[in-house]
């Protein structure tokens, strides 16, 4: 594989006085999909927040597309091409579905072209037809599944090259879970987006990602390939 899209070297962060991440080394290859797994509270969300820039690095550095982005703020990283689907979805409650999607266009700022003017790309509605049906409803009143689709759609509106997904199937009905999983596969395949996904359920993680990282107490304790190891071999690390 060529130059990695994202690298973290010796990354650490903390909430106030309490350190949460230690010495994270990670490289996400362009076009790849990495699954981040681990028990509750080990720091998975925090790691994603650190990558998008919502948490500051207290040590180490981060590069994206070969550029050191450690000092950039979240909106600059979003504009550089990192899309973020947070845990808990964080839909703008008083904006309509369309407006929520349009906020995602902000990440296109400075990337030239008429993309921003052109509006929300159609392929988002191909991926999530439901969004087209509820396009004028307020984000705050949507059900959990609707919000999750919207959150992914919003991230895609910024045409990211790296998509960060934090437990995207949490609280989603089974048939929609399948839709979302299918959509994510298409996002990888058709749009060529690199994905870093936090996922508690290993069989989806294994069927979707090429490699995995196991986190424990704020550190990455194991990295490997989902093609060379089975989920069962790794499961004991997660279920302690």
């Amino acid at each position, binding site marked *: 594989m060529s130059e990695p899209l994202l690298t973290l070297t010796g990354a650490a962060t903390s909430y106030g006085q309490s350190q949460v991440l230690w010495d994270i080394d990670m490289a996400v290859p362009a076009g790849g999909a990495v699954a981040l797994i681990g028990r509750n509270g080990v720091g998975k969300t925090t790691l994603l927040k650190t990558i998008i820039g919502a948490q500051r690095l207290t040590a180490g550095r981060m590069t994206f597309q070969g550029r050191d982005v450690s000092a950039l703020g979240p909106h600059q990283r979003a504009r550089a091409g990192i899309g973020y689907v947070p845990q808990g979805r964080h839909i703008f409650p008083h904006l309509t579905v369309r407006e929520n999607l349009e906020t995602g266009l902000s990440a296109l700022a400075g990337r030239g072209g008429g993309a921003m003017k052109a509006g929300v790309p159609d392929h988002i509605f191909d991926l999530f037809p439901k969004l087209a049906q509820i396009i004028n409803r307020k984000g705050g009143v949507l059900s959990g599944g609707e919000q999750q689709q919207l959150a992914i759609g919003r991230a895609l509106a*910024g045409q990211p090259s790296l998509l960060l997904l934090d437990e995207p199937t949490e609280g989603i009905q089974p048939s929609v879970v399948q839709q979302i999983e299918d959509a994510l596969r298409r996002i990888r395949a058709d749009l060529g987006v690199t994905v870093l996904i936090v996922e508690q359920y290993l069989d989806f993680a294994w069927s979707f990602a090429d490699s995995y990282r196991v986190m424990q107490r704020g550190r990455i304790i194991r990295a490997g390939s989902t093609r060379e190891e089975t989920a069962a071999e790794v499961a004991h690390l997660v279920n302690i």
Partner: protein
Amino acid sequence: MGEWPLIAGQIFNGFSVASLYVLAALGLALSFGLMRVINMAHGEMLMLGGYLAYLTLQVVPGPLGILAAMPVAFLGAAAVGAVLETTLIKRLSARPLDTLLATWGVSLILQQAARNIFGAIGVDVRAPQWLNHAYTVQSGLLEGLTIPATRLFILAVAFAVMGALSLLLARTRIGLLVRAVNQDRGMAAAAGINVRAVDLSVFCLGTGIAGLAGVVLALLGPVTPNVGQSYVVPAFLVVVLGGLGSLKGTAIASLIVGLFSALVQILVDVSLAQVLLLLFVIGFIQFRPQGVVAVRSRALDA
């Protein structure tokens, strides 16, 4: 002249007072509604507008001075707003009660600065001749009703500002970004929105409007270091009545307050009218606690 012209006159005065409140309260509603910032120094932005009008009139005397003063005051107050935002407000984001206290301190400082710069006794800003006349109904039921041109002018300015602002917020992406930032800052940033820039522009817009309002208020009132204080409490009452930062709500609430006090004043004096207004607001809350215009949400702590 009988009862009718008096009542009709008071209805007009209600609108006129409402237009003053709209102008004084719009900036507040913006920064409160969109940024959760209670700007107690808002009154001093009005004051600043008055002083900038004074300075402009020194440079551009004559009939059009007042028109020239409006953009000057807008920009001047917006610039002060920018300084305030970058040095103070941004440290207090999402702590509305603390912004209230801190900006009160700012208001004390600005008042004292005005005293030291312009003197304690205020300066002279006059309506130009083309505004200094009144239309009087000469016959009919409303005979004797007088409509001052200045007040008509202020009504027009209030409408223009409201219109421009709602267009700006509804028709451009700015409105969208502003609302997104207000609802979830962290997510807005992660979606690629430059939240600092949005904050700054909203706050400057709010103070700028206050500056412009200050010019207009100077046509009917004094320009002194503490002039802002006399407008800021009623303006806040309008914001409370209007509902969370809704422009429409602010306009309607201004009208309610304006008409209420104008009509009540037919019967009681102004001091009592003020007390009745407060009772009215508390009464209003009893059946419409969200204010005139409500925003519904499912969030647990909405």
